[in-house]
């Protein structure tokens, strides 16, 4: 399966590095990254392959949220199908 990671928060140095380190740690392969800064808010969206995760998906979700809290960011990891079903007919 593929997961979408959204990162929203105040723009600081090293956000991309921290999130991609987390992904690497769990064995999640990053396929695509897009980022923008909207009204001082850093906004990054990553698409990654989570087929070969080294830990249960739920743990990956929790760790990502924890990383967000530690850095004043909101990080959410969600199954790609949610977005496909809501926004595509």
């Amino acid at each position, binding site marked *: 399966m593929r997961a979408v990671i959204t990162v929203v928060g105040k723009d600081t140095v090293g956000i991309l590095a921290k999130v991609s380190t987390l992904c690497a740690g769990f064995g999640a392969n990053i396929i695509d990254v*897009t980022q923008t800064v909207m009204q001082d808010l850093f906004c990054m969206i990553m698409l990654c392959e989570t087929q070969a995760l080294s830990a249960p998906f739920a743990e990956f979700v929790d760790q990502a949220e924890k990383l967000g809290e530690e850095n004043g960011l909101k990080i959410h990891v969600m199954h790609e199908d949610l977005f496909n079903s809501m926004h595509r007919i």
Partner: protein
Amino acid sequence: MINTKDILETVAMIQDENLDIRTVTMGISLLDCIDPDINKACEKVYEKICRCAKDLVPVCEDIEKTYGIPIINKRIAVTPIAMLAAACKGQSPIAFAETLERCAQTVGVNFIGGYSALVQKGFAAGDRELIESIPEALARTQHVCASVNVGSTKAGINMDAVQMMGCVVRRAAELTANEQCIGAAKLVVFCNAPEDNPFMAGAFHGVGEGDTVINVGVSGPGVVRAALSKLGKDASVDQVAELVKKTAFKITRMGQLVAKEASARLGVPFGIVDLSLAPTPAVGDSVAHILEEMGLEECGCHGTTACLALLNDAVKKGGVMASSHIGGLSGAFIPVTEDAGMIRAATDGTLTLEKLEAMTSVCSVGLDMINVPGDTSAEIISAIIADEAAIGMVNSKTTACRLIPAIGKKEGDTLSFGGLLGEGPVMPVNRKAPNVFIHRGGRLPAPLQSLKN
């Protein structure tokens, strides 16, 4: 990759606008548990429910994590217990309620519905016993919900049952008077009750359903309100309807996804998605606020019924394409104590019982979660039920009454249930007596549904 704007919109819906799956409800048929020995029947019921639903809660929790969507309630609906009680002559059906409670605690669900009887055309064996036992059953249990269907478009209204239910509703409140009368909040009186409703307190597993089924109820009044708030005040009602439709489509797609996933993981057939916009007392999750966003000063003022008609229709039109099977109640809910905007409007006196009754003629599901003064007579409660059932019967739609007589309290006092059931003011009721009409009994004839020109 999916559009960035769409992704952020979904995240905002869930994080800021209270988008969630309100309930994943597993319907379980208990017809194969019928036994003349009530103890044996209860054993079979316990075994079957626990076997079928043992994975319901963990699977839903796993889906929550995977998709990042909160699933607020996990529930079970069972075959109307009156059908099981019919075989157990002379034995109190309360044992079934206690068994259902044990099942709810074992599998960890939030509610279990189906302590029900369908008596729209008359009482069969077990029906009277079950209805009479409802107040005690609700007082003795925490998770069990009861419902009684007293009328239908095809059968008319069973006025003997309506008369009985006035007393049963009062008694349910009296027996739980020291718990904010919560017994009455777990009891619904229906006309045209749907057999696949995933929402409580009225959920039961219809006899026409399969052995087990997964039904899902979505939510999302906050999402609709947030979308409307971005629409200018000069937008026409056509644009309002269009926006509601688009938003309902997205909400329902999420429900469909969860329903399919839960069905596949549990190995239980997918039944329906219920499109209802179900509010919660949380700030920003109110149906009343949607109506106010459309341009009303406060919910309950003139124009409310029209706005609600627009909302209800647009939600259905948007949702119907998003799911392969729609069912249940599917419409906007207007439970007073469960909706922050309704609570405020009722407290201010803008929203009255009469206005709510008018609103129920254009939306699902009926007079829901309304606190009435503690000294309201059983006849008046029966008459309110009869009025509401008549609206449902004539308009071929589901209507229901969930009234809570606030024992020992009067107009303006508050009942506070906590959680999703919320809190609300005790609302004034017309005190003139309908007693003679209610005591007539009999069956109110079914309406003519032809010669419509």
